[in-house]
């Protein structure tokens, strides 16, 4: 996808450290410093509660866990963006991250595809993390690959 979606999302202030981190291309996750489990979006550790949560830089890498290629514009602002790949990436640290897959055709996205963050610097105040295949030419990838 080449075009930029509208910034029509006003996030929870709880997540502000994540979006601020994006401006300097740091992919932060909300980590429990006791068990070192990472969470996204901002959360509370299911074992240790909220007191031990800190935003911590992570790898910004993972695999496509599942995805859909969107062919229908449910709202007008997406009409000139279709088709686009909406994916859930399983980050190396564990959490899921909803995103777009860029850097390959939507038809080439597949479950198990290794991806890494692609920083989409929209303007001085907005950077959105999308994900792109680590191997640029992925059309020959085995689609039966199990992750």
């Amino acid at each position: 996808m080449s075009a930029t979606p509208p910034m029509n999302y006003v996030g929870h202030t709880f997540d502000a450290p994540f979006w601020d981190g994006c401006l300097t291309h740091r992919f932060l996750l909300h980590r429990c410093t006791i068990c070192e489990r990472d969470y996204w979006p901002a959360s509370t550790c299911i074992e240790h509660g909220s007191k031990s949560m800190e935003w911590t830089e992570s790898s910004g890498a993972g695999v496509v866990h599942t995805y859909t290629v969107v062919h229908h514009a449910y709202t007008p602002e997406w009409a000139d963006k279709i088709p686009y790949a909406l994916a859930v990436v399983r980050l190396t640290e564990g959490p899921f991250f909803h995103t777009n897959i860029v850097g390959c055709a939507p038809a080439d996205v597949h479950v198990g595809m290794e991806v890494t963050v692609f920083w989409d610097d929209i303007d001085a105040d907005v950077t959105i993390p999308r994900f792109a295949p680590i191997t640029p030419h992925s059309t020959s990838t085995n689609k039966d690959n199990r992750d």
Partner: protein
Amino acid sequence: MSRAADASISGRFAVAGLGMSPQGRSLGIPALELRKIALENALTDSGLARSDIDGYIGTSSEMFEDIRYLGLSPRFAWTMQSGGATASWSVLNAVGAILTGQADVVACTYGAAPTSGGVVRVDGSRGGFGTYSYGYPAMYGMVGAGMAHALHARRHMHKYGTTSEHLGAVAVAQRAHASLRPDAQGFGQPFTLNDHQNSRMVVDPFRLLDCCRDTDGGVCVIVTSIERARDLRSTPAVVLGVGTGHNIRNWWTGDVYDMHDDIAPAKATAFGQAGIDLDDIDVAALYDPFSISVIMQLEAYGFCGPGEGGPFVTAGNTMLDGAIPTNTGGGQLSGFYATGFTALSEGLRQIRGEAGPTQIPNAEIALVSGHGGNGGIQNTWAHATLILGADR
């Protein structure tokens, strides 16, 4: 697994009234009016007087307006919302209210007009059910429940080799049912797998005919004790068991996209209360906004093994003469979309022997499911299991 199910409520309560408004596209009837029509029809169905309703469970933020406009005088009125699980859980809440002495007769009412002005969302905006958006994923174009369910479908295809034709088999089967039912949107309009395959791709892997359409409509069910229900005009549908499960549990373990819902605890609780096994189910009414939902629920309930749902449906097992007749009114896909009240009303009709051309002969036990909870970052959260039985 859930705690041991308390069987003590089983058989003590019944749905004693069912009221439907017209269900359809662009009816031009306000949601509040649809709820009024549904309630009036439920009162007529049961023979209860308006003054008998001493508990009211609404399913929208407009609940307080409901009770005034509908001329009710309940001792309590509350609204509850857990997406498509709301319908069956409203029955659960009604049972709880009656058990604890809050009321004797509880009306649970739904009514929405997404194609006549839209539904009121949590943030006050209006739109069809299909334009719900999701927290930060909305920034990436995650709009509508279709995408949320497509994420499950893709996982299922990846893990088990489920195909678009398998999905199509669900759509074709339910349209076959709907084509026989005058109250269904698909009445008189059967379609073939070829039609399904030729329908346009919407959100891969869903084609147009894998998706339900919004419709306007209202539904009201009235819950009371089995003793009282037996004295009323309508045929009681006995509440044999109710169960709950929540996919947040699978979110924490990273299995949420592999699991359509958290069905295991809901099933264990409801079946435990009812004292039944899967073989005892005569007919299933499963929450089915998208074709994959039927496949994954048939597997999770155990009607077939994991990954076998597609071939199971393709082999005709969900047809009227199949192993488990499913969504005999066409479901949401081809009947009408009244959230969880689609499945609930069909389960009731089967138990009451009022399903007309798609009535399963001697249907004594019906499985009703509900699923949903739009918002946050996903919508496949809550799961409800309701077991309804004939009073025999």
